[in-house]
């Protein structure tokens, strides 16, 4: 989705420069929420203020909203169909594989040291084994990240 946004904003509409859009993508990935929505809100805000942000958010959300609404109304009445059930069971197996590949790709980028491995394992265990809300895994990660930075700074002095 991001390459599409980039082309539209820098080449077609010429709202922002290449450098500005890359900055916006970088920060959109580091704050919570959906990355493409974050980018849209940032771009809208830059180009046309708060109103721009509202309209670009609506613009990026609306197509998915409409598509899923249509699918949901259809699916609610047909989901019990035995063939469709087989289709979705097959897709679930494919999904598990796709998510595994995404996790491996992400792990290569996100985990750079032993502390990272520990955080990943602990948050996995919290969610799967203890069924603790994933919010706590995020909070734990943030606290450990800040704590380890603080300890490193103190060692330097």
């Amino acid at each position: 989705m991001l390459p599409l946004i980039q082309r539209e904003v820098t080449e077609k509409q010429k709202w922002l420069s290449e450098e500005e859009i890359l900055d916006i993508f970088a920060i959109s990935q580091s704050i919570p929420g959906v990355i493409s929505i974050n980018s849209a809100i940032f771009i809208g805000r830059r180009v046309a203020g708060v109103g721009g942000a509202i309209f670009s958010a609506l613009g990026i959300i609306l197509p998915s909203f409409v598509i899923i609404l249509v699918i949901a109304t259809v699916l609610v009445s047909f989901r019990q169909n035995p063939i469709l059930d087989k289709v979705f069971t097959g897709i679930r197996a494919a999904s598990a594989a796709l998510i595994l590949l995404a996790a491996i790709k992400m792990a290569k980028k996100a985990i750079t040291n032993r502390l990272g491995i520990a955080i990943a394992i602990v948050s996995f265990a919290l969610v799967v084994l203890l069924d603790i809300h994933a919010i706590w895994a995020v909070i734990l990660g943030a606290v450990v990240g800040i704590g380890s930075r603080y300890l490193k700074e103190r060692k330097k002095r």
Partner: protein
Amino acid sequence: MMEYFRLFFSFFKIGLFSFGGGYAMLPLIYQEIGAYGLTMKEFSDVVAISQMTPGPIAVNAATYVGYKAAGFWGSAFATFGVSLPSFILIMLISTIFKKFQTNTTVQAALDGIRPATVGMIASAIVFFANTSLVDISLISEGFWKIFSLPSIAIFAFTIVGSKYLKLGPILLTLAGGILGIILL
């Protein structure tokens, strides 16, 4: 009316605490949707649809869960809820965003959150595998009964298809569905 606000609040939480986008949002979403009577199977349907349609998973999930729980307005409130945290946050930081990007405390927190999201994505695999590759509820019929060979074959095919044949997720999702009809 209460149901609308409940949906709004659930998805507001999801929007506020999900870092890394996409699959990293899955555990947060499925931990919340239990309250709306959605099963893991139904939730995986939503993810399957998300893989084949262009939009973000979180918006698709909000729309679908909202619709099932409370119709059109349920969808609207849930979708509004999942996007509002982004909106508020960006309005707050858009003027100081250079400072935010270089702030060492913010960066330290993100350095810790990133590996946590890897753990969260990994947990999503377990939940998906448990409704397809294995079914723990069949354990009483014997250990080997919990494995579904057709699903494991589809899983393996998807890995090979993506890593070695370089097929895209849409095609692989469709292939999974077709193989489901043939094998299951």
